[in-house]
């Protein structure tokens, strides 16, 4: 009975928990509620994924209104996968968040913080689960508005400007999506994605369809921070509270990439969006530039959070490169990287959170000898870094490997070179940290000692996951392959 | 003393070679004293050439540290 309602519960539980959170208000209670809610969504998403794996896509309609008229949720492998990523990361990071947030945010604001967290979770899960284009916009705005709040709670005053910039950019992006959806609606008279997919081919060759496509792609590109629309991202990640950086870096752009995949492959169909429209080459060029440019910029950052943020921009480049190959292999590389990148960035940002908790800084100069002062935390950072570089036996290697295979299959040598150079640049920027932390001078008077277990364990968990999924690839690769197949097959 | 021992060992070897012939694969190998001469001349040449080379390539120890 309840099993049939899982898709609705996935979104409704965090949505209802958010106002409850505001009512509870006390830091510990709200934190506990957030953890419990996240864990509940994790359980639901796991159940959904197994259900999809067992018996194929799930259709769920609200209020008994059949698909094209009411709001429908449709869960296939791709969304189930993304739902799992989002809920898992939220669970792990929210466990971590209690002490980190306690150290960074005033007690009176913590209730609001967790409320915003839950709303953001709602929005992200909603984007992933919905089968309705307009509904997607609404969830997008829910997640965006709450993430502006979350970012603005950072300690540095630059968090405010970062949040403001993100607000302007995010709103423009969302409005573009709104325009795109509106144009499609004007053309087809439906908002349901499956329905859109059916009706679009007949009218695809109109200017309205093309304009809608342009607005949608640019709007979503803004949300995924595709180069050169990434300018909001570094500051937002750098000045947000540690837990928020970890949460958003691991989930927000991933969900946006999911939305892109959904529109490109499911709604418009790959032959229109990537072959009729010259998007594949555009994505390849922008993705390559993103990889090179952002990795290069990352090397020169003094603030490690900012460095990781630029590295995220580079990683988004890899994701779009995977799409640009227009092949099943490339697409599975992208989907796989969604998962793996969430793991590595989660681990890295959590490690930074631990460090910030102990030494109150994310500046490279303060990392002197940190390898000895906080060995476990730096160990986590190192594993995350290795994964980011793509060292074999880490998760990062697996996705890079598939990306490389996809590039080879396509015979795009320059892209291959870009991927290799990107990895080398990653070696450089990770090395800078390792060098300072392990080979730098040991400051005797500097604070040392590990972060508390409640922060360290989630970080270690993600680090281990990086290694686990670097060796056991059945789950990540298997599902990614199937998901890519499903996307190529249309909805 | 050592030098004298070395010289006498060398002389002994040349004599021994006359008794125990080497199975020669290349014609020059059967020339008497070929290997002795070769060893002497090669090492001489190597040192001389090396010395010349050193004049061009030797630098102060902290050359790269400047």
């Amino acid at each position, binding site marked *: 009975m309840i099993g049939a309602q899982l898709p609705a519960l996935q979104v409704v539980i965090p949505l209802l928990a958010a106002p409850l959170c505001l009512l509870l208000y006390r830091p510990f209670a709200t934190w506990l509620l957030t953890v419990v809610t996240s864990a509940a969504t994790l359980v639901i998403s796991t159940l959904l994924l197994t259900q999809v794996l067992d018996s194929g896509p799930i259709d769920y309609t609200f209020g008994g209104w059949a698909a094209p008229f009411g709001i429908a949720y449709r869960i296939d492998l791709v969304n189930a996968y993304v739902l799992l990523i989002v809920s898992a990361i939220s669970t792990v990071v929210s466990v971590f968040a209690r002490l980190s947030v306690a150290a960074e945010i005033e007690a009176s604001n913590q209730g609001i913080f967790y409320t915003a967290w839950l709303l953001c979770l709602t929005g992200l899960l909603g984007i992933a689960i919905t089968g309705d284009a307009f509904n997607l916009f609404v969830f997008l705005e829910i997640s965006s508005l709450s993430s502006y709040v979350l970012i603005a709670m950072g300690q540095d005053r630059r968090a405010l400007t970062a949040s403001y910039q993100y607000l302007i950019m995010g*709103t423009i992006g969302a409005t573009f999506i709104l325009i795109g959806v509106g144009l499609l609606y004007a053309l087809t008279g439906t908002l349901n994605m499956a329905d859109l997919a059916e009706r679009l081919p007949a009218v695809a060759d109109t200017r309205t369809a093309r304009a809608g496509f342009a607005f949608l792609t640019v709007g979503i590109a803004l949300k995924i921070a595709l180069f050169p629309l990434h300018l909001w991202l570094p500051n937002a990640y750098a000045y947000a509270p540690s837990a928020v950086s970890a949460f958003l870096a691991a989930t927000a752009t991933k969900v946006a990439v999911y939305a892109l995949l959904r529109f490109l492959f499911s709604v418009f169909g790959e032959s229109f969006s990537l072959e009729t429209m010259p998007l594949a080459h555009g994505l390849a060029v922008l993705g390559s530039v993103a990889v090179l440019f952002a990795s290069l910029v990352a090397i020169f950052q003094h603030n490690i959070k900012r460095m990781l943020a630029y590295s995220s921009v580079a990683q988004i480049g890899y994701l779009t490169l995977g799409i640009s190959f227009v092949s099943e292999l490339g697409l599975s590389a992208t989907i796989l990287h969604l998962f793996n990148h969430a793991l590595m960035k989660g681990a890295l940002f959590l490690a930074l959170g631990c460090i910030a908790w102990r030494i109150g800084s994310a500046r490279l100069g303060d990392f002197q000898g940190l390898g000895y002062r906080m060995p476990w935390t730096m160990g986590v950072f190192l594993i995350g870094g290795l994964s980011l570089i793509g060292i074999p036996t880490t998760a990062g290697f697996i996705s890079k490997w598939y990306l490389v295979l996809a590039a080879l299959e396509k015979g795009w040598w320059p892209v291959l070179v870009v991927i290799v150079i990107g990895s080398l640049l990653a070696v450089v920027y990770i090395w800078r940290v390792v060098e300072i932390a392990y080979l730098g001078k040991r400051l005797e008077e500097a604070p040392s000692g590990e972060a508390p277990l409640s922060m360290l364990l989630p970080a270690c968990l993600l680090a281990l996951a990086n290694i686990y999924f670097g060796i056991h690839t059945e789950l990540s690769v298997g599902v990614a392959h199937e998901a890519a197949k499903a996307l190529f097959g249309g909805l | 003393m050592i030098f004298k021992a070395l010289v006498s060992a060398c002389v002994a070897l040349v004599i021994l070679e006359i008794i125990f012939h080497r199975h020669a694969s290349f014609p020059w190998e059967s020339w008497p004293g070929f290997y002795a001469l070769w060893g002497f001349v090669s090492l001489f040449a190597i040192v001389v050439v090396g010395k010349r080379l050193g004049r061009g390539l030797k630098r102060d120890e902290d050359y790269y540290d400047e």
Partner: protein
Amino acid sequence: MSFGGLYNYWIVILLMMTGFYVVIASGNLVKKIIGLNLFQASVFILYISVGKVAGGSAPVLQDGFEPYSNPLPHVLILTAIVVGVATTALGLALVVRIREAYDSVEEDEIHDQDESL
């Protein structure tokens, strides 16, 4: 349909570009939000225009009232307006906080203050 017959869409485009221009060109954080509002308003009008059927009535199911305007876009845009209001409120709240922190709402001044750090 003639060029002029589509005047509502021209207005949409004009409003959109105005809003966009304000966001780009104005350094005042409040003005930027106003620009953003204009930009969003243009989209609201776009949706409403799409739903309107020339000569159509309100969507009441009764004999003699054919054709009727499509109500769905109007309903949708209500949601979007709510979102827009929320965005504006949040944006302005941020500007208030920024002014408290920097004592300015001019972007270049704020930028300079951060640079000089």
